[in-house]
């Protein structure tokens, strides 16, 4: 496959032609906050609005997960504008996140913690008032536990459930603040057609989907994506 050369934060990198900027950066060790992107998904959802970067010659920041790399592209992931957008987006997400890192199985392996660290912001919202969703935790499935209060609605689990496993157990339902990832008729996961392949747990960036009986991680580990 043809390679293209581009510059990110002054560093020259090469990436396969047609690759999305987000994956080119991540594969070269340059972190860009992201939640909803999945490399296998060629039609990005671009829902989380955290992966903003600035590209020379463009007057507005763009989402890295939807931007295809081009030859001699010059990218800045640390521009003031794009970081501001990412920080606001993150603040909005955290304003309804049931924060409980001390008891959370994703502690130290959580994409939200990583993003907060990267953006140098706190996990607690600074300006917005915290409004929690207060939805019941679903522990009806033998293989995993689903806590919708920690869900960021990135849609990764829905995508893998359909496109990898071809089962379509998960989906979005309801509207506005009530919107959530759920099953047909909001039934408990244990009663759905789910056979427990745990693909969704693998892609979940937060503590919303965790394997049953998983032990909290103590050391610092690199996220899968």
């Amino acid at each position, binding site marked *: 496959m043809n390679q293209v050369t581009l510059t990110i934060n002054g560093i020259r990198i090469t990436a396969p032609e047609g690759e999305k900027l987000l994956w080119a950066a991540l594969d070269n060790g340059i972190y860009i906050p992201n939640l909803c992107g999945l490399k296998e998904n060629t039609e990005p959802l671009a829902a989380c609005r955290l992966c903003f970067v600035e590209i020379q010659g463009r007057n507005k920041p763009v989402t890295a997960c939807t931007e295809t790399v081009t030859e001699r592209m010059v990218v800045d992931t640390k521009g003031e504008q794009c970081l501001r957008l990412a920080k606001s987006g993150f603040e909005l997400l955290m304003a309804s996140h049931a924060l409980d890192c001390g008891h959370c199985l994703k502690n130290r392996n959580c994409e939200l913690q990583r993003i907060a660290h990267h953006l140098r912001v706190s996990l607690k919202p600074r300006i917005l008032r915290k409004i929690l969703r207060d939805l019941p935790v679903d522990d009806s499935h033998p293989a995993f536990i689903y806590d919708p209060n920690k869900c960021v609605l990135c849609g990764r689990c829905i995508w893998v459930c*359909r496109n990898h496993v071809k089962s*379509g157990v998960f*989906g979005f339902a309801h509207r506005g603040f009530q919107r959530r990832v*759920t099953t047909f*008729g909001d039934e408990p996961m244990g009663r759905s057609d789910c056979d427990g392949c745990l693909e969704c747990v693998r892609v979940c960036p937060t503590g919303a989907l965790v394997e049953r009986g998983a032990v909290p991680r103590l050391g610092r580990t690199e996220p899968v994506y």
Partner: protein
Amino acid sequence: MTRNSFPQPITRQEEVEAKQKTRRVLKGFTKKRANLIPILQAVQRKLGYLPRIAMAEIAIFLDIPSVDVYEVVTFYNQFRLNPPGKHSVRVCLGTACHMKGGYITLDAWERRLKIKRGDTTPDREFDLDTVACVGCCTMAPVTVVDEKPEAKVEPTKVDGLLLAFEREKQQTSEKPQ
């Protein structure tokens, strides 16, 4: 304030009927995903609401996950998950009614009827939902009961309206056959 997630149970017979009717409606459509909303509207026109069985049938017909049908149904206010009650109660939460305490009215209805918005009482007497401005803001807070807008519906008026229904019910049952 969560909307009711899932419909109250329907009888076996209702289920069979709903399934047949849904299938009949589906005959008039092609298996295109774009038809989802028109199908849902047509089925609701027939049944008055969209029971689980109807959604499942539609999903099979269009060959999409049933949760996708559920997504659309729970997104639009026009779709109902519960059978309609004999009387419909629509609490206005438009701007004017909101300012005049529409939420308190809604709360009163929810407490009196012991259901949440979007639900139907177990005896199928009342169904409760909200609307956004019915065009008579001077009467705020408004509740539309069986198509008739009631003015200044404070919690005490909720009690009054319910009492009237009870009376009416008593009288009709007292009447000799």
